[in-house]
């Protein structure tokens, strides 16, 4: 039989305060199987660890029970001690007599008795423990980045710069995301496109990055380190290698479509380039709006194309890739403005969203950066910004703060003032949230020097009178109803997870929170990892955030992915399920209960097998198995039986 050593920790007075450790040491010395026992003030300290090592060597111990704190804290510490002493680390058991005993009891007599039972169960379990070795699998040294906004771009560049291959999948015809639509960025007022386009170009030219635009992830199978990805790429009607960007095709195309890049403020053709700095720089034929790919129906663009880049016979393609890690950076959409009918968006052309105003301010926008209002092209002399449009309204809209609107609205007001010096901006706000480096200074400067008027209160209704928009609201500081006449109203819309992300998370079975944002593994300590191993989160797909935060988070996600990619193998705890093939009847009840897809029926042998890398050792299949064929390693029915006998005996 295994010679077992028992080490009882005082944990200062944490354990010793409620448990009589001296008495336990005396009493348990004679327990069957115990060859050595001692107690010590801090077992986890270096001297404490040395005690264990010495005892193993001197007494030729075959297993160790440490009676101390929860295994979540020091299991790995003591496993390492065993390993150094030449024992298998799975010959160590923790008896948790702190969280489960001393911390919750005050009666020393009863607590000591309970600690005794806990230690005895650990000894009984250890007696039948087998020596186990971590399960390992190879790692495909390649990453997939879903989404080509600033977060996705940053993550892809970081991984590629570290020397690993990256596959980037973007749904739209160009990368750049929402950031490429912005005019200037707060709080420095530097041009958004000027700082983003170098990164886009770098990504496109990077030898380690393969970019698929007009593409979507169809499925991801496999497991951490070994994913098989299917990517659906829309038909390439315009060959990017042949297209010379002459723009002749758009001139002949007879179809006009609201331009998504300009938030519907201008028109584009059915064949188009999304914006001048688009990456990849090529034209896209939008099949939904094209008159038809039959030359009889239209065919004007193909006739006109001297480079012969247009091919109507192209088809959608499914591309398969193998990757080790996946970064999800699927971004955000604005909260649907139709949900706030009292603001009159859609009814009045001079009520616009914040992203539309970005386009009006942008030098590459529909007005070339001049501020005109959409209805009649007049320069707005009075402009009202409505903060928290959709945000912080748990009764009707979003309960959360969208975080970026205070700052971008202020930026809008400043840029407006810089262009129209005699204009008057008003901002309706609830609170001004300016937590960020140099953000508060940005606010104070605007209020004291730029003449921007802040009105504290919510807007109830917006309507038109003559050619003015009347913004009716409440000034909660004076307690009076207020009506502001404005030429243009900008709604600072809240942000929600992008539409495309909803389907994606369903296919990938990635956890989200109740708002649809991706869930992190731990809100504080593991903010860039998903609970699903091998998936990492970047940017606004995880929650509202601004550009600096998105970039830092993307780099964080990239470095977590790099830890995985730079390992030759991934290791996995061997405390997992196994199947006794003689007992298994192949009923497959366990296949349905496994939340990780780790169980599969072997069609030849007609027994169910366990994929050791996917199995998380949750035990669901073991309790579901009607024949007892499914067992957990080092937690077999026999072990559990013996432990229950100790507890039930009460001795």
């Amino acid at each position, binding site marked *: 039989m295994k010679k077992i050593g028992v080490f009882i920790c005082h944990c200062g007075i944490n354990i010793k305060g409620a448990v009589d450790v001296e008495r336990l040491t005396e009493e348990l010395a004679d327990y069957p199987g115990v060859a050595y026992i001692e107690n010590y003030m801090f077992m986890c300290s270096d001297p404490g660890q040395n005690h264990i090592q010495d005892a193993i060597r001197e007494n030729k111990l075959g297993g160790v029970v440490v009676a101390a704190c929860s295994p979540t804290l020091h299991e790995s510490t003591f496993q390492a001690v065993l390993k150094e002493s030449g024992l298998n680390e799975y010959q160590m058991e923790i008896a948790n007599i702190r969280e489960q005993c001393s911390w919750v009891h005050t009666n020393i007599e009863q607590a000591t008795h309970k600690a005794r039972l806990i230690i005895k169960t650990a000894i009984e379990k250890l007696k039948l423990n087998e020596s186990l070795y971590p399960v390992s699998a190879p790692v495909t040294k390649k990453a997939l980045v879903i989404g080509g906004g600033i977060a996705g771009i940053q993550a892809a560049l970081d991984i590629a710069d570290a020397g690993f291959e990256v596959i980037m999948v973007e749904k739209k015809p160009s990368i750049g995301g929402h950031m490429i639509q912005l005019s200037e960025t707060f709080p420095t007022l530097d041009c958004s496109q000027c700082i983003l386009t170098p990164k886009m170009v770098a990504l496109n030219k990077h030898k380690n990055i393969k970019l698929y635009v007009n593409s979507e992830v169809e499925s991801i199978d496999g497991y951490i380190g070994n994913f098989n990805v299917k990517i659906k790429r829309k038909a390439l009607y315009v060959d990017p290698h042949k297209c010379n960007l002459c723009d002749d095709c758009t001139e002949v195309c007879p179809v006009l479509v609201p331009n998504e890049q300009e938030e519907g403020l201008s028109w584009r053709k059915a064949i188009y380039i999304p914006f001048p700095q688009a990456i990849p720089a090529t034209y896209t034929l939008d099949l939904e709006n094209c008159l038809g790919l039959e030359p009889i129906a239209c065919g004007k663009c193909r006739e006109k194309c001297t480079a012969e880049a247009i091919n109507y016979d192209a088809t959608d393609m499914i591309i398969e890739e193998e990757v080790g890690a996946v970064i999800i950076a699927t971004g955000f959409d604005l909260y649907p403005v139709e949900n706030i009918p*009292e603001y009159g968006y859609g009814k009045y052309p001079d009520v616009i969203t914040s992203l539309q105003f970005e386009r009006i301010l942008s030098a590459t926008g529909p007005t070339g950066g001049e501020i005109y209002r959409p209805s009649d092209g007049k320069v707005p002399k009075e402009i009202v910004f409505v903060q928290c449009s959709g945000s912080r309204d748990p009764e009707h809209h979003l309960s959360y703060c969208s975080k970026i609107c205070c700052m971008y609205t202020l930026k809008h007001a400043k840029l407006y003032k810089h262009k129209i010096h005699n204009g008057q901006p008003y901002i309706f706000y609830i609170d001004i949230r300016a937590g960020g480096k140099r953000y508060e200074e940005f606010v104070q400067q605007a209020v004291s020097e730029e003449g921007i008027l802040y009105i504290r209160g919510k807007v109830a*209704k917006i309507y038109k009178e003559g050619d003015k928009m*009347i913004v009716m609201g409440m000034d909660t500081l004076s307690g009076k109803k207020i009506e502001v006449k404005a030429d243009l109203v900008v709604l600072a819309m809240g942000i929600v997870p992008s539409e495309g992300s909803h389907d994606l998370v369903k296919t990938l079975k990635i956890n989200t929170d109740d708002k649809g944002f991706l869930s992190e593994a731990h809100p504080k300590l593991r903010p860039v990892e998903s609970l699903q191993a091998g998936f990492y989160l970047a940017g606004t797909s995880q929650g509202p955030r601004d550009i600096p935060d998105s970039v830092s988070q993307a780099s964080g996600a990239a470095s977590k992915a790099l830890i995985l990619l730079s390992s030759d193998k991934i290791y996995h705890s061997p405390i997992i399920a196994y199947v006794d093939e003689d007992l298994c009847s192949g009923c497959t009840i366990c296949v349905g209960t496994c939340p990780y897809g780790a169980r599969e029926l072997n069609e030849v042998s007609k027994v169910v097998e366990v994929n050791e890398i996917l199995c998380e050792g949750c035990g669901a299949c073991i309790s579901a198995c009607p024949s007892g064929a499914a067992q957990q390693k080092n937690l077999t029915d026999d072990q559990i039986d013996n432990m229950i006998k100790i507890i039930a005996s009460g001795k």
Partner: protein
Amino acid sequence: MKLGYFPGCTLKTNAKHFEDSAMQVMEVLGHPLEEMENWICCGTVFSMTTDDLMLQLSSIRNLLRAENQGYDELVTLCSMCYNTLKRAKEFILNDEENLRKVNDFMYREEAKFKGTTDVVHLLSILKDRITFDEIKKKVTKPLKDLKIGAYYGCLLVRPKELAIDDFEDPTIMEELVDTIGGEGVVFPYRLECCGAYQTITEKDITVKRTFEIINSARNAGCEALITSCPLCAFNLDQRQKETSEEFLEFSTMPVFYFTELMALALGQKWNKEWKKLHYINPVPLLKEKGLI
């Protein structure tokens, strides 16, 4: 599905023309209204006092009697009756203890209150049950060229749980106006407060509200207003007397119950008695549009 009609006090007095016209309309549409028996005060304003159930009893007694008389639904014309009855029902039914207490108190009634009769406003019946398409087929004298603003006030759309349409942007009455051949005009102040019972103690408030609401309607191009609330109608119509005295630039506007105009559109005769219940004489406008 058995429909009962709950009139309420004003429909028998100051808003008699509302009841008369509604009766005519429903007759023409083939769904004559059957008045429930033994009804009492609806409770007037819904009481928000949560610990005094006495204030809910009048509403609940009406609902109980409607239940006992076998009505599946109780139709109201008055917005306030609708609001008060419906809220009282939800309030009592949502709490078993409240339900037990009011039933214990009403032990002399024939049966226990169970809350099986639903409270519905006539507008909902017109839209959902009869449908505007069916009404359109029966229009014989469309309200051609008549621009009408629908004034909702608060009781049809607040609180949002009992709103008969979108509580921020309702369109049911405008759609109805379009159905009977007029032009439903959306004007900014159609959901703003009319001043309600301030009309008794702080008349000035109501006068100012009337000025703002009617001005807002006028600026949007309305020639007349419709409403379904006798209190709104009183404030917006009768108070135009004081509003004209207070604001010299004010010009008056006729205010109708929506059923009056529906009756005309469905080919019914204008009842001369109705004119007496209007403060602003609607006859010149109706004559100008060739409706009478």
